[in-house]
């Protein structure tokens, strides 16, 4: 009797990020006006564009902080608008604001974050917090309240919060802001580490040359539109809108 061999169809994992005609309006202004973008897993992609291009809006939608007005966005194949809870477990985001509590110490801020990220064991939390504080160079300031921190120290601590876990997608909005040379080198090291560990990283930074040295590819936004992509691991979606007139006047600055 002849044997039948059944081959399973190869399953291609979904891209880390896929957006289709993604748009976000603030009042009558379109901060994003139909962006279709695909980012492959494990890639470090630089988001380029002038102020008000829509970079922050795109990152905030992917981080579930903003709902899209139109279109769809997927993270690891999960719809950001339909299943934000599932997306939050996969994404880490550093925005313009640091999201810290001034009256808590550096240690307490990280412990709080660790607990909300699901760490339950006190020893595990303490170990993770200590490791992160050392990694971002704030071990000597662990018990100081954040209110007394400089802007650069606050940024380091916010970066440290991202190190409490290894998510599959890391979204960074101006991570170099407020940092001195050492701090900027820290960001470079973190980008390299995440990249090595296979996380997908999207970075919007005005230090484009610095990021470009490490990035696999780049996507350029302007006036809420995706105008160009380049390098590896990133592609404009099928329905990429050419750089024509936006739906309405773009906002002056990202929100």
């Amino acid at each position, binding site marked *: 009797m002849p044997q039948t061999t059944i081959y399973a169809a190869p399953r291609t994992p979904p891209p880390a990020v896929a957006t289709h005609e993604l748009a976000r309006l603030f009042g009558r202004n379109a901060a994003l006006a139909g962006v279709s973008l695909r980012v492959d897993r494990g890639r470090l992609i630089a988001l380029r564009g002038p102020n008000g291009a829509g970079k922050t809006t795109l990152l905030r939608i992917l*981080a*579930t*902080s*903003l*709902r899209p007005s139109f279109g769809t966005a997927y993270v690891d194949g999960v719809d950001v608008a339909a299943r*934000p*809870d599932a997306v*939050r*477990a996969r*994404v880490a*985001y550093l*925005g*313009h*604001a*640091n*999201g*810290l*509590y*001034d*009256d*808590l110490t550096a240690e*307490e801020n990280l412990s*709080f*974050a660790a*607990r*909300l*990220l*699901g760490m*339950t064991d006190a020893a595990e939390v303490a170990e993770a917090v200590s490791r992160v504080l050392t990694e971002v160079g704030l071990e000597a300031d662990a018990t100081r*309240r954040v209110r007394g921190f400089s802007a650069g120290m*606050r940024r380091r601590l916010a970066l440290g919060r991202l190190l409490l876990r290894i998510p599959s997608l890391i979204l960074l909005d101006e991570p170099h802001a407020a940092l001195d040379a050492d701090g900027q080198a820290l960001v470079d090291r973190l980008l390299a580490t995440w990249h090595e560990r296979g996380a997908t990283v999207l970075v919007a930074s005005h230090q484009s040359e610095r990021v470009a040295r490490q990035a696999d590819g780049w996507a350029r936004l302007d006036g809420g539109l995706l105008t160009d992509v380049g390098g590896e691991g990133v592609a404009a979606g099928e329905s990429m809108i050419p750089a024509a007139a936006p739906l309405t006047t773009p906002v002056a600055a990202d929100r």
Partner: protein
Amino acid sequence: MRADAAVAWQIARKDALAELRGRSAVGSTLFFAALVLLLFGFALGPDSRRLTEAAPGLLWLAIVFGGLLTVSRLHQLEADDGALEELARYPVERHAIYAGKALAGFGAMVVLGAVLLPIVALLYGIDLAGAWAPLTATLLLGALGFAAVGTFYAGVTVRMRAREVMLPLLMLPVIAPLLLASVKATAAALGADPFDGFWSWLQLLAAFDVVMLVAGGLTYGQLLDE
């Protein structure tokens, strides 16, 4: 469920720490509430009967003033430096965030009530002996309802520019039944027979709390999304 309770506890603990460390805010709230009681005491004069009759209403008036400042401040902590957006991005249930903020508000309200109650007794010459149990029950249920509603409306107004004005405007009409029941239950507790009519008002308070906690837990998550 256990994970949600742990998240709520962490949020409440964090709020309590921040509130205690911002000592000037705690002090000013207590001072403001105590000042209301003192001024009304002077205005009403030395007539002990009038003072006793007015005490339940004035106690809750002071608690409401202090409570409005407290629930607003607990959300203001989150608005500073984008912490509310950060809090909303954690992979936790939205009702757990609401429960944590409401628990912090409840704790602050109970402390406020516990400080103001002896002040009322002292200023208005009221004997609290024998009324502790019904007064405590009223205070706990009143504080819980206030925190349940206050947390929701503080979430509504936290991104508004005129939040200090909007919070009482939106909240006070909703808590009218709670205030009525709290004042009546307090009056009953301080009356000759502490349990005359007391249970009816206490039941109303409990029902109000349950409805508001469920409604807040179900809807608060919508406020966190832009």
